[in-house]
């Protein structure tokens, strides 16, 4: 009975938080709640302060024992981690399920997460600021022509094999559109699209932007020469194939503003002189 009563009572602010998702970890730091974290996921790298915190596994291999030993009062996990959710429920540890979606969902998550951990004002302020900055980028590029853009986030170096590109949903797609590009795969309603060379030729992108973000990835822009095998693509013909490096492109947290701005500068260099 006592337990039921606690569960039903309004939730108290969280002071011992574990976040195993890089995006939510960054959000908490950006809204000034980083000092409430007692554990982070294996893949968390930003901000550098995360290196001082214990690692408790990640999406595929959460270490429940280590999580419980840290006595968290809130665990932020990915929405699909059903086993972990069940185990936390049994241990009566509250959790916050998070899922990657579009750009608008990022600021929405920041607001709701801020309210949940007890820094509502800071969360709202961060979300407002990000929305303002994104809308600035949008209005800055709004009056220019929107080049047909292919956003590639995976490819086998040296070849055009195993190309993965952003489809018409998700934060990468939203970032391209905000930055003043027209995603050539906008009609494919998937976050990631396994792309064949034939489809690239057929879609004829005017700009190709490749993202590189893996730690230790030392590929240089020389690798972009692989595209020369398909000279009929307008982007290749007009030398509009670019490579952007940085983890901010694949972590849908507060740094998406920086990432979107870098995309906008690549797509519309004339507007950012």
């Amino acid at each position, binding site marked *: 009975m006592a337990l039921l009563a606690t569960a039903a009572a309004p939730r108290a602010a969280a002071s011992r938080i574990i976040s195993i998702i890089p995006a939510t970890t960054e959000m908490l730091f950006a809204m000034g709640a980083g000092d409430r974290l007692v554990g982070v996921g294996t893949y968390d790298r930003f901000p550098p302060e995360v290196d001082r915190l214990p690692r408790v596994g*990640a999406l595929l291999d959460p270490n429940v024992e280590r999580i419980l030993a840290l006595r968290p009062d809130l665990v932020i996990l990915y929405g699909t981690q059903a086993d972990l959710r069940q185990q936390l429920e049994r241990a009566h540890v509250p959790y916050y399920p998070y899922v990657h979606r579009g750009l608008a969902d990022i600021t929405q998550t920041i607001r709701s997460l801020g309210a949940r951990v007890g820094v509502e004002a800071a969360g709202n302020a961060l979300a407002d600021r990000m929305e303002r900055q994104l809308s600035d980028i949008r209005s800055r590029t709004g009056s220019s022509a929107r080049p047909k853009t292919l956003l590639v986030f995976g490819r*086998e170096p040296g*070849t055009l094999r195993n190309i993965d590109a952003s489809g018409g949903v998700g934060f990468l797609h939203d970032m391209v559109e905000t930055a003043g590009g027209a995603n050539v795969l906008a009609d494919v309603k998937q976050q990631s699209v396994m792309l064949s060379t*034939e489809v690239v030729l057929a879609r004829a992108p005017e700009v190709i932007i490749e993202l590189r973000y893996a730690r230790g990835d030392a590929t240089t822009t020389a690798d972009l020469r692989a595209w020369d095998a398909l000279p009929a693509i307008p982007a290749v013909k007009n030398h509009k194939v670019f490579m952007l490096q940085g983890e901010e492109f694949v972590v849908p947290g507060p740094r998406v503003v920086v990432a979107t701005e870098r995309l906008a500068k690549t797509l519309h260099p004339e507007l950012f002189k």
Partner: protein
Amino acid sequence: MAASSDLRRRLLATVGGFAALTIAVCLTAPLIGSTPIHMSRVFDRTIPFADNVDAQVFFVARLPRVLAAVLVGSAFAIAGVVFQAFLRNPLASPDTLGVSSGATLGAVVVITFHIDTAVLGVSAVPVATFAGSAGALGIVYAMSIARRRGTSSTVLLLAGVALSAFLGALNRFIQVIGDYTDTFRSIRWMMGSLDVGSYTDIVVALVPIAAACVAIGTLPRELDLVSIGTEAAESRGVDVRRAERVALVSASLLTGSAVSLGGPIPFVGIIVPHIVRLIVGADHRLVLPAAALFGGAFLVICDVIARTAFGAAGMPVGAITAFLGGPFFLWLLFRRMR
């Protein structure tokens, strides 16, 4: 005399039939795709290649894919025939002795540790894949040499299963310690892909595949006899250990080359030999060429479906092979049983 002319007739009919199928499939496949192209433009020399979209779709996007599919399908099918005959096990496949797992390990290592930065414009992934399969092949070869006379092939089979499981465990270990973005890439590689985009990879894979086919081509009688039993084969004058070594090395070479070209595409190597045996019988003089031709045609068909039926997003060819081949095999089996 009568028997040999009868065989020649059957050989001609079988190989002719399968060859006609394979040639028809290979000629039709490059004409089919998600993008409409005009053949008159493809071969129009007045348009420079750099500006000719139709020609690039045909020569860069489609033709290498068809050639890679035919080569990979044939290699897996022949390797499957040889492994099934020599290990005397209908469930043996190109992966049974761990060669495919070794190849996968090579790919996962270079991807995870970023050793795959392109060298001279050539990706290190196929090279590492081939090295991995050669490593596994070395272990298999050592086992077959160490194997004493009279040891049953079950021992070799079990050793292969153990090696395969061990290499698979190493793969998973590396994927877990690696960064998630690299793990994503290696999983992507493991789905297999025939969109090779250049002819270099195909030529590189063709050399070992051709060598292995020549070696296996000397063995149909040995394959027939050994698949019945080693003692029977020995009593008919077959040097079983020598034949076995040639067969295992060649079949592993086929597997390694096929995996480095197209990735570990499942199903072709285990089921195509059985489909062919249901059609042509057990004589390896017929089974080997028929499996090579049918395996090639089968993978080309699967790849056409993979690249056309799912819109721009496509589908890994490995998802199609079992989806299409499974029901077809069951249908053949039921028809045979009635």
